[in-house]
Structures are given as C-alpha cells and as structure tokens.
C-alpha cells in the first residue's frame, strides 16, 4: 500500500517534470513554462506575505517585519531603493484607487498614496479594528471590489470546532458557536473609517480560513481558495490513516456568494471519493454525505494541505491569451502531510472562462522548496505566499522563508 503510494507520487512527479519546460539557467532554480523568465527583485525584508504593485511599478510588500516599498530605478527589474515604513505587521496589501490598504491580525488600515511619494507620508487610517486577537488563522486578508466594498476573511481559530481543539476523539460543537464571529467573510464599506466588526455583516460562512481571497473584476464576483482541515488520521485513527490525511481533504476553490455556506466544520470535500463528506467530529464515517445542496461544491478541489495563500485573476497584457482572466494561486506548501512527503510549494494556474474553470490546473512555477531536507517545511528553500501583477503584465511572487521577491515575465517569440 505504502510502496504503491510512493510509486504513484514519484510517477506523478516525473510526469509533472516532463510536462514542464526545463528550468532555464537563469530561472533562480525555478521551473516555468517555455517563454517565461525570472528576475530576483529583492530579498532581505524578512518573511514576506502579500504584495501589490502601483501603476508606476513601485512594489508594496507586507510581512512579519512590517511594510516596505521597493522601487526599480533603472528598469532591470531589481529593486534599487527599499524603504520600510508604517507599523503594520501582517499579510494583506492592496492598492485601491489612491490608497494602500493593509491588514494585520486585528484590523484593516489604509495610507494615502500621493503622487511622487515612495513612502506614504500621511497618517495611517483605521478602516476596521478590534477583531478579536487569536493565535490561529488570524490573518485578516481581504478583497476590495470596484466600489470599495471590503470583504474580510475572518478565519476560524480552530481546526474543526471540536470541544477540545486538535484533541484525539473530541467531538464537534453543534451548532459550532465559532461561526457567529469567525469562519467566514465579513463585509464592510471599505471607504468608511473607524469601524469595528459590529459594523460589518456576515457575507458568507463555513470557511475555515480563506487566506487567498480576491475580487474578480471581469466577473464582478468574489472568489476564495480555502485552507482545509488538518489531522483526520491522528484525531480519528479508527476512520483514517496517514495516507488518507495527506490526500483526502481538498483545498476548496469557490466563488463566494452572499449568504453562501462552504461547509466547515461540519463537512469537507473528499478528493478521493469526489464528493463532500460529513466530518468525523460530526458523525462522519469517512463516506457519509451531507444533505444534498446544503453546502456548495468547490469549483476545484486542490490537493490536501497545499495551503493556498494567495489568489490572483490575471488581467495583465503581456502573458499569452490563455492566461487572460485565469487564476494564479500561490500554494505555501504543506506541513500536515507528514509523515507522507510534503507537497504544494508552487504557483498553479487554473484556466478560467467566464468565471468558471475551463480545464485542468497547471503547475506554473515550481522548485521553490528545493530539496527540503528531512521532509521538514522549515527546511524549504522558499515558500510562495503572495502574488501581484505589475503594470507591464509581469507576475510578482513573494516568499515567506527569506522574503525573496521574483518578477516573472513573458518574452514574445
């Protein structure tokens, strides 16, 4: 059983390697499709998270050490000027009109972006604050629509809403009280200041942690890729083994609609069975399905534990036509697949047409993790965590291990 599983992984890896273009000598150890090239923009701002690129090419970056801005003054793609600013240590960074919106674990803030300024000189304004401080799934990532509506991911501070979080055999709380204040998307008027969570409205629920949340301007719709639950094997060893845990709980990609329910903690999408199952904490037997139609099925269920940490709909002009309005997803990579081989650690492209998947996903950029000694995530060379598109259509990728930033460009042939 175990050998055949490994053989499957190996053969899958071989197929993937054969399908991708060989790594270009100058690709910084990454593999990319033919015609794409890589420039290392910068490394040195510490663990990076999300980023966004202004119309003039300035890159605004968030991370564990705070905010920074990077400018390339001579057009070679590498940052020549790097400045730290502000006092926000968090994940999300989004440019909306003349504002830079950022977040940490407890709030969303903004700075005015004035013409000619590299570092914002205006005071930080608070859009929403006083989200409860939590240790788990606390990043308040967000999306903004074209009117400035603010959609905030309020992750659940729990794995599966057990009476005792992550305790073997502990049953689920029913109904799960966490869903009253967490585990969904809360919506605010992003142009108003000094709001608290009470000023928001729960827009969608049943989402464990939707770090990768994004407005699709072409479809005028909200999308997210959600981190699925951990540890079905160690919590319910009579129902699941380690291989099950490493492979069955899909990372669900959804269009998020007003009033939508995406199934956490009561269910998860089982990628082996190809349908949603009742979670073991709620009486699941590894097969039983929930009531039909109660929870949305994912547009795509990506492999377990890949950790989708950013989502981007490509609207740049320089990539080939097939990328237009398709979705790039940065997968941070697994830890909970152990003892099975870790996976993820790549940027995936999901072809989309009119807001729906139009084909199988493709690995776009890979090779971030390197050899990853001892199968240990902390030994990954890089872990992709943030995505943005520059004014020239290049794709920017940020890494959380060292803060490396790449610019991926397409050269017409």
């Amino acid at each position: 059983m175990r050998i055949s599983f490994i053989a499957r992984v190996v053969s899958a890896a071989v197929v993937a390697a054969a399908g991708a273009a060989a790594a270009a000598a100058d690709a910084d150890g990454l593999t990319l499709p033919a015609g794409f090239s890589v420039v290392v923009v910068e490394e040195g701002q510490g663990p990076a998270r999300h980023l966004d690129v202004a119309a003039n090419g300035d890159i605004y970056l968030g991370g564990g050490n705070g905010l920074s801005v990077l400018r390339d003054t001579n057009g070679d793609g590498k940052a020549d000027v790097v400045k730290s600013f502000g006092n926000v240590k968090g994940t999300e960074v989004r440019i909306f009109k003349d504002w830079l919106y950022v977040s940490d674990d407890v709030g969303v803030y903004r700075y005015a972006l004035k013409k000619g300024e590299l570092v914002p000189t205006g005071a930080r304004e608070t859009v929403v604050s006083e989200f409860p401080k939590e240790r788990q799934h606390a990043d308040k990532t967000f999306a903004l629509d074209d009117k400035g509506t603010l959609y905030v991911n309020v992750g659940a501070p729990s794995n599966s809403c057990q009476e005792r979080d992550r305790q073997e055999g502990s049953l689920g709380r029913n109904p799960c009280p966490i869903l009253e204040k967490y585990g969904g998307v809360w919506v605010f008027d992003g142009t108003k200041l000094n709001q608290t969570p009470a000023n928001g409205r729960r827009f969608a629920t049943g989402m464990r942690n939707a770090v990768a949340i994004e407005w699709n301007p072409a479809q005028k719709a909200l999308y997210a890729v959600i981190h699925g639950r951990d540890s079905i094997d160690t919590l319910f060893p009579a129902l699941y083994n380690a291989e099950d845990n490493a492979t069955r709980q899909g990372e669900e990609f959804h269009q998020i609609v007003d009033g939508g329910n995406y199934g956490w903690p009561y269910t998860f999408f089982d990628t082996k069975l190809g349908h949603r199952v009742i979670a073991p904490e709620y009486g699941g037997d590894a097969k039983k399905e929930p009531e039909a139609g109660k929870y949305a099925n994912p547009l795509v269920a990506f492999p377990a534990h890949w950790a989708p940490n950013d989502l981007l709909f490509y609207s740049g002009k320089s990539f080939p036509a097939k990328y237009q309005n398709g979705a790039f997803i940065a997968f941070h990579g697994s830890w909970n697949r152990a003892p099975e081989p870790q996976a993820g650690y790549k940027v995936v492209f999901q072809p989309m047409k009119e807001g729906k998947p139009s084909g199988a996903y493709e690995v776009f950029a890979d090779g971030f993790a390197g050899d990853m000694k001892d199968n240990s995530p902390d030994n990954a060379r890089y872990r992709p965590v943030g995505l943005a598109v520059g004014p020239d259509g290049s794709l920017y990728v940020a890494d959380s291990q060292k803060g490396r930033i790449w610019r991926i460009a397409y050269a017409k042939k």
Partner: protein
Amino acid sequence: MSARGLRRAAVVIGACLVVACVAVGGETPVPPATASSATDARPPGQLLYGKHCLSCHQADGRGVRNMQPAIAGGTWVQGDARALALFVMSGGFDSASRKDSAEGNVMPAFRQLSDADLADLLTYVRQKFGNGASAVSAAEVAEARTSLGPAPIS
C-alpha cells in the same frame, strides 16, 4: 533479507526518490510508523513519536514556524521531567516555553497513553534531535499523573 526488510528497503528507496535522498548527515529523520509497527524492532519511543507527534513536530523535531514549536533544542523538553509529563498529559498553551511563542496551534493532551508509553515517548524526545536530557521512568509519569485534574470534556 526478510520480506519485511525488503519492504523497508523499498520504502527507503521510495522516500529517497521523493526527497532526492538528501537526508545525509545530521539527524536521521524519523521513519513513519507503518501498519507493521507493532512487530517492528525499532525502539518504542520512536514508534510512538511517529504515531502521535511527527505530523506536527515533524520528522526532524524542528516543528513548523508559526505553527508548532521545535522539540529539537527545546529547553522545556529537556527541563524538569515531571513538569514535561504533566504538560504532555494536559496539553494547552501554558508551557514555560510557549508563553511568548508565536506558534498558533494548541498542544493536544495525551493522558490516554499509558505510563510506560509516555515514559518511552518522553525519554525519546529528551534524547533525540540533538537533545541530551535524562530518561523518564514510568514511575515518574505515574507520580506526575496524580496531579492531573479530572479529564476535561472531550
């Protein structure tokens, strides 16, 4: 070579293919517990680690940054054996090493394990991954267990 030996060799070769066989030098990563582990010749502490600890604290005991703390080099793990036994049986966030830690995930309680298993497991984590603390006896675990409160709701 026995059938199981052949099978294990195949697993090792498979693992090498997957991770490019880089596990040379330093600590040998912990092999996963398999279905045949009950009859395996490996030390029980290692098997128990593979079953209960590895998926969070990882094969090299380094944990995962922002998620689970490292066992390797841990002052708490190598400190007072009674306090460690009590913490592993009760779980939570309140160990001495975690007061200022950024790791987000809670330590589950392992009071369901026997005194002998806990002794083997604690001895293993105190002496593996470069750690060098004293062994823990089943009697020490049993004595620590007398200080545990009633089992919380599960």
